[in-house]
C-alpha cells in the first residue's frame, strides 16, 4: 500500500492531496507516482504485458499455421493475404467499439482486435521467410534422405527465422501501441491511466503511463533482438 501523506483533503482515487498532487503544474509529481504505483501503474503495466503476449501468441499460432498451409498449397495465399490486409485496414478504435455489442466490455474484445491486427505482418513475414529458402538447400536436404516434414522442421523453419523474427518484432510493438488505444473502450493496460489522466487533465498520470508504454515497447523490442540472435547463431558467424 502507498504511504499516507499527512495533511490536505482526500480526493477519491488520488489519495491525500498535497503539494504537486494538487498543483498539477509539474510534468512529474513523484509523490503521486509513489502513491499510485502499486494500485494504478503496476497493475496496468502487468495487464499490458499480458494483453500483448496473449495477442501475439494467438496471432502467431494462427499466422504460422496459415503460412505453413499457404506454403504447401499456393492457392491459399491470395485469399489469406487479402483477408489479413482487410482486417488491418479497419481503424482499431472503431473495431473495438463495434465489437462491444457482441463480446461486451471485456478482454476478449481487445484480444480479438489485437490478434486481427497481428495477422498481416506475422503471416506475410512467415510466408516470405519460408519462400526465401533457396531451392538448392531443400534439394540437398531431400537428397540426404530427409522427409518432407523433416525438411520443414530442420531446414525451412530455421532458415525462415530471421524473417519470422522481424515479423514478431513489428507485431509486438504494434500490439503494444494498439493496446494503449484499446483502453478507451476497455479499461485494461497502460492506456487506462493515459485516458483517465487525459479525462481529468492530470499530467503526471498520463505522462508516466506514456513513458511506461514507451519503455515497455523498447524493452520488448530489445529482448526480441537478443532472442533472435540467440536463435540464429549462424547469422552472426557469417557477418
Amino acid at each position: 500500500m502507498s504511504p499516507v501523506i499527512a495533511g490536505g483533503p482526500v480526493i477519491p482515487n488520488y489519495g491525500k492531496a498535497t503539494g504537486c498532487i494538487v498543483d498539477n503544474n509539474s510534468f512529474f509529481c513523484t509523490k503521486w507516482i509513489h502513491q499510485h504505483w502499486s494500485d494504478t501503474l503496476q497493475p496496468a503495466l502487468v495487464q499490458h504485458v499480458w494483453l500483448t503476449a496473449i495477442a501475439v501468441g494467438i496471432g502467431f499460432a494462427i499466422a504460422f499455421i496459415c503460412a505453413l498451409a499457404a506454403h504447401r498449397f499456393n492457392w491459399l495465399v491470395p485469399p489469406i493475404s487479402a483477408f489479413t490486409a482487410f482486417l488491418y485496414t479497419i481503424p482499431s478504435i472503431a473495431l473495438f467499439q463495434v465489437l462491444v455489442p457482441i463480446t461486451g466490455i471485456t478482454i476478449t474484445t481487445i484480444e480479438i482486435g489485437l490478434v486481427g491486427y497481428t495477422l498481416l505482418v506475422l503471416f506475410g513475414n512467415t510466408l516470405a521467410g519460408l519462400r526465401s529458402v533457396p531451392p538448392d538447400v531443400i534439394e540437398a536436404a531431400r537428397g540426404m534422405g530427409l522427409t518432407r516434414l523433416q525438411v520443414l522442421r530442420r531446414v525451412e523453419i530455421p532458415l525462415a527465422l530471421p524473417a519470422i523474427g522481424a515479423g514478431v518484432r513489428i507485431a509486438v510493438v504494434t500490439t503494444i501501441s494498439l493496446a494503449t488505444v484499446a483502453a478507451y473502450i476497455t479499461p485494461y493496460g497502460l492506456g487506462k491511466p493515459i485516458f483517465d489522466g487525459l479525462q481529468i487533465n492530470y499530467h503526471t498520470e498520463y505522462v508516466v503511463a506514456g513513458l511506461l508504454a514507451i519503455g515497455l515497447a523498447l524493452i520488448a523490442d530489445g529482448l526480441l533482438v537478443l532472442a533472435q540472435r540467440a536463435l540464429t547463431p549462424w547469422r552472426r558467424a557469417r557477418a
Partner: protein
Amino acid sequence: MAEGTRVILAAQLNGHTFIDAFKFIWEDRSFVGQKVLEHLALSAVSVAIATVIALPLGVWLGHVHRGSFIAINGSNLLRALPSLAVISIFLPALGIGHGVVVIALVVLGAPLILTNSYVAVDGVDPDVVEAARGMGLTARQILLRVELPLALPLIFAGIRTAAVYVVATATLAGVVGGGSLGDIIFNQATYFLSGIVGAAMLVSALAFAAYFFFALLERLLTPRGLRHAGAERGHEEEAPVVFEAAAT
C-alpha cells in the same frame, strides 16, 4: 479530453448499423466532409514534415554508405514508440491541439521514410555508380541522375507506407483537441455506432486513397526505362505488405 465524452454504449449492432452509417455520411455530409478535409490536412502536414526530415538524411547516409546503425536501428527504435504514449508525454509541454498529434505522426512516419531511403540509395549497384564516375559525373550528378532515380521505387514505398500509417493514426487527434475523423470515432455518445462505422469506413478509404496517390506519383516520377526493373526489387526483412494500412 476535448469534446469526446468517454461513453461506450452497449448499442445494438445489426445490419441497420451499416445502412445507418452510409445515411450518416450522406445526411451530415457537410460536417463529415469538413472532418475529412481536416483529417487530410493533418495527415498531409505530418507526412510532409516527416519527408522533409527523413528523406534528405536517408538519401545522404545512403549516398556516403555510412550510418546504417542510425538509419536502421534508430528507425526501429522510433517506430516502436506507441503513438498515444508519444502524444501523452508531449501534451503537458505543448497543450491540447494539433501540435502534439503532428509530433506523434512524424515520429510514426519518419522512421519508415528514413530506413527506406537509406536502404534504397545504399543498395544501388556499385558497378553502376562506378560506371557513372568513369563517365566523368561528379558526386552530385551521380546522386541526382543515377542513385536517386534507381532508388525511387523503394523511397516511394517508404513514403507510401508512412502516409497510410499516418492517415490511419490521425484518428487519435480525436482524443486531444480534435480536428480529424477521430472526433466522430471517439465520440460514440453523440454519433452512435453508425456514425463511428461511417467515419471508420472513411478513414479506411482515405488510407487506401493515400496508398494509391503515392503509387501514382511514383509511376509518374519513375523514368520510363526503370519502371519494370524497379518493381522487382524487394525490401529485405520488411513485411511484404500489400496494403500497409490502418492500425490505431
